[in-house]
């Protein structure tokens, strides 16, 4: 990735920037680090995608054709960990790095060295996570973590060295995320342009502020949980073993206290981004700025207190079941405010449908399906039927692929011209959108019906009545996977060259970022702008 086009227009106090690899290793520039986050994310998106295509190939037909169940279990778990921690979260952090200083009128992030370190912890963590696959080829250990990404004890206590590798990878990824979050909070609270009160701050920054707070609250709990797992495995403790006075369900509480807010951690940056895109392409101000800010906060707070709905079949007491059911349902209220504001932002605008707008609209509709199925999943009695089935698999892929990943794609198409100074190919972008959205539905819509019909998740082979839908889903997934090559190609082309992008890039652009050149200068805002009114 080449953003070396930043002009080095004479900064007296700076040592000359090293070239080549050393530049990327030592950079403290928010845009360079953002670029590295985004490139790493794209690479890991393909790694995680390749894993799941192997899984879908195995599930094309009943019977075991391609792999042993042990290996299947490794692929599904590592797929999830890679997509969540190494693809989606770094993409959002990349956005934050690139855009927050531009949007709030700051020269850079508040803690640039911490920023560099935060990124460079990611590649070793990703290597730790996937290394057991390679070690197994040399006869060391029995492969990667095979417990699913949830690492439920006691299965993870029983597991091989893959579990230890995953635990350490999670620790490192967690440290990286916490450092990124501290940096974002410090930047937002200290470096806003004069006159930009918190309530005037752009929504993308607000989405990230809430995300960062959630990360700092929940990641230590996950780190504690997996450390307890590590000591159960190697040092004779019994946190999760009833025989020693422990409880396996304790792990589920610790895991999901992190795991549910994690869903919002993945989605809040995207929710923050959406109003910018919708407002730009509707040529109209964002509707309900204050309402959306408070919805972010409300979702963040509620997200911290609903974790139990992830294990309602584990035998929670009735009052806990009722509490988790009603608290989960209440999340639909602030979420509805967001939907209302998105549509109201479009209402009576003058819309045009360039690629980012297409992705934004696709996001709203498909994420709507995720939200509505999430509402029925909250019902304890119906959940007994949906839970652990493909219905849930379909639901969270509507949330995290159509919500998370398509949201990230919206952002990439929206900001890529700003970052590179060139326009991407609109024709390829639109083709990418249509292929993605159609094949996505072919992949995941059948999984709702598989779940209703009674197919459990995480099985390498299935009964004959599930065959048709699985075959459709597999065909869809391969089209979906291959379409993403177009995305990578389009980005590559755009970095290499293309039509010049204007400062605002889009006709309807609002906000500070549009006042800087495309690409922006090395130090984004040398002089802080002043926000009036």
């Amino acid at each position, binding site marked *: 990735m080449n953003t070396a086009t930043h002009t080095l227009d004479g900064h007296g106090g700076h040592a000359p920037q090293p070239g080549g690899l050393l530049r990327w290793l030592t950079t403290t520039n928010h845009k360079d680090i953002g670029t590295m986050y985004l490139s790493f994310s794209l690479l890991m998106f393909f790694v995680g995608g390749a894993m799941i295509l192997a899984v879908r190939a195995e599930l094309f037909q009943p019977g075991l054709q391609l792999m042993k*169940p042990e290996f299947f279990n490794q692929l599904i778990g590592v797929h999830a960990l890679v997509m969540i921690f190494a693809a989606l979260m770094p993409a959002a952090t990349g956005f934050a790095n690139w855009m927050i200083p531009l949007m709030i009128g700051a020269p850079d992030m508040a803690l640039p060295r911490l920023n560099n370190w935060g990124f460079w912890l990611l590649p070793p963590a990703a290597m730790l996570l996937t290394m057991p696959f390679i070690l197994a080829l040399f006869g060391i250990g029995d492969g990667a973590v095979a*417990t699913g990404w949830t690492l439920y004890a006691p*299965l993870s206590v029983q597991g091989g060295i893959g579990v230890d590798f995953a635990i350490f990878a999670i620790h490192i990824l967690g440290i990286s995320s916490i450092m990124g979050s501290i940096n974002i909070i410090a930047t937002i609270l200290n470096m806003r342009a004069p006159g930009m009160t918190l309530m005037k701050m752009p929504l993308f920054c607000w989405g990230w502020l809430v995300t960062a707070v959630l990360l700092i609250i929940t990641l230590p709990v996950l780190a504690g949980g997996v450390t307890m797992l590590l000591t159960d*495995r190697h040092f004779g403790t019994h946190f999760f073993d009833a025989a020693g006075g422990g409880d396996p369900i304790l792990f589920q509480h610790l895991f999901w206290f992190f795991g549910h807010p994690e869903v919002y951690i993945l989605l809040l940056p995207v929710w923050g981004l959406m109003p910018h895109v919708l407002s730009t392409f509707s040529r109209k101000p964002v509707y309900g700025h204050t309402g959306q800010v408070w919805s972010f906060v409300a979702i963040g707070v509620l997200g911290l207190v609903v974790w139990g709905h992830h294990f309602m079949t584990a*035998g929670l007491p009735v009052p806990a079941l009722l509490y988790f059911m009603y608290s989960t349902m209440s999340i639909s209220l602030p979420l509805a405010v967001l939907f209302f504001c998105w549509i109201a932002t479009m209402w*009576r605008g003058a819309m045009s449908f360039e690629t980012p707008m297409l992705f934004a609209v*696709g996001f709203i509709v498909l994420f*709507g399906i995720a939200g509505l199925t999430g509402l029925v999943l909250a019902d*304890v009695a119906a959940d007994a*039927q949906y839970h652990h089935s493909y219905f849930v698999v379909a639901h969270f892929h509507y949330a995290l692929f159509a919500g998370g990943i398509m949201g990230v794609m919206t952002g990439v198409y929206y900001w890529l011209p700003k970052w590179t100074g060139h326009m991407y190919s609109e024709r390829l972008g639109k083709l990418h959108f249509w292929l993605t959205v159609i094949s996505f539905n072919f992949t995941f819509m059948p999984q709702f019906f598989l779940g209703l019909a009674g197919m459990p998740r995480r099985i390498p082979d299935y009964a004959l009545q599930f065959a048709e839908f699985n075959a459709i889903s597999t065909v869809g997934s391969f089209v979906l996977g291959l379409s993403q090559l177009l995305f990578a190609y389009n980005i590559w082309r755009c970095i290499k060259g293309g039509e010049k992008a204007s400062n605002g890039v889009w006709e309807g652009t609002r906000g500070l970022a549009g006042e800087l050149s495309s690409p922006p200068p090395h130090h984004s805002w040398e002089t802080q702008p002043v926000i009036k009114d």
Partner: protein
Amino acid sequence: MTILNPSRRSTRSASSLSRLALGAGLALGAASALADYTWNFPKPVTPIGRDTLSMHNQFMVVITILFVVVFAIMLYSMIRHRKSVGAQPAGFSGPTGMLQWFWVLVPFAILLFIDFVLMGIPAFHAVIEMEDTRTKADMVLKVTGLQWKWKYEYPDSGISFVSTLSTPREQIEGQAAKGENYLLEVDNEVVLPVGRKVRILLTSTDVIHTWWVPQFGVKRDAIPGFLRETWVRIEEPGVYRGQCAELCGKDHGFMPVVVRAVPEPEYAAWVAGKKAEMAAAAAGSDKAWSKDELMAAGKAAYEKNCAACHQPEGQGIPPAFPALAGSKIVTGPLLSPEGRLIPDSHVDRVLNGKAGTAMQAFKATLSDADLAAVITYERNAFGNNKGDMIQPAQVKALR
């Protein structure tokens, strides 16, 4: 302008195409019992299952209406408020005036009503009903999850047995045509009387499993070291199939649940037959077996209980599942000179398992005769040729 609410259109086309494909599949004669309900839950046969289905159907109608209404408004806007048709953008950024506030608050009120009244009240009653396992329970069934099979116990009649997948390996590996109940068939079905409230207690000996029969509308985790409970009252005779629903290791996909619901008299006959069978097995532990008898019974028991991990030829899948062929433990001494158990010996491992691994305590699931036969078989098969043997009576004494 061709882009009219794109995703919804593709959603529709996806589901109608898959409907087509499914229709073709059905026409080709895949007449499985569940095929009629592939678009929804399989036909429920318990009160809870019926409740769940009707709630689910109602919720699906509600969320479909929400989906259509909300996105119809968006679609309308996308058609009318386009730059290409000359729309001029308005400048508002929030509700202004009473009428707009009304439009903002009405959806909110509707959603509150849907969440906590329309969905919340039936859900409340369903939860209470579902969790009431004790009121007027007629009998108890205890279910124990083990990697990768289910053990069933009837405390009232003293019956207990283990239920494992009976689909042959060849069908899974594609060397034989797959049967109608591929992966959903077992050697020992659970038999339950129709019309009686059965309180089901669940636990596990190793990792977390989940007992699930879709047609019963219940799913409950089996957690090692704890008891969980649920209940069923099956209203129609028939065979009901389900699966373990919680990832529990290598063969998670291969531990089905099969329940046969029969009328009361038939159930009584089954109980009597099962009791006689168990008495015969108990008698087996008192008689002296010949080595050939033990080897033959041992081979059968090995293939059913051990071969999934240790492999048919005893080569194992190291490092997780060690080889038995040439194993130091298997070829070590059988018992101490006084006839007692040697810690960490072959017999100890088979009877008591190894903590923290998938090797379970088989004394919980196998009869004395099967245990003696498996131990004898492992010591003399796979080229181990120890030449010694253990009698069921000796195993009984070691328990």
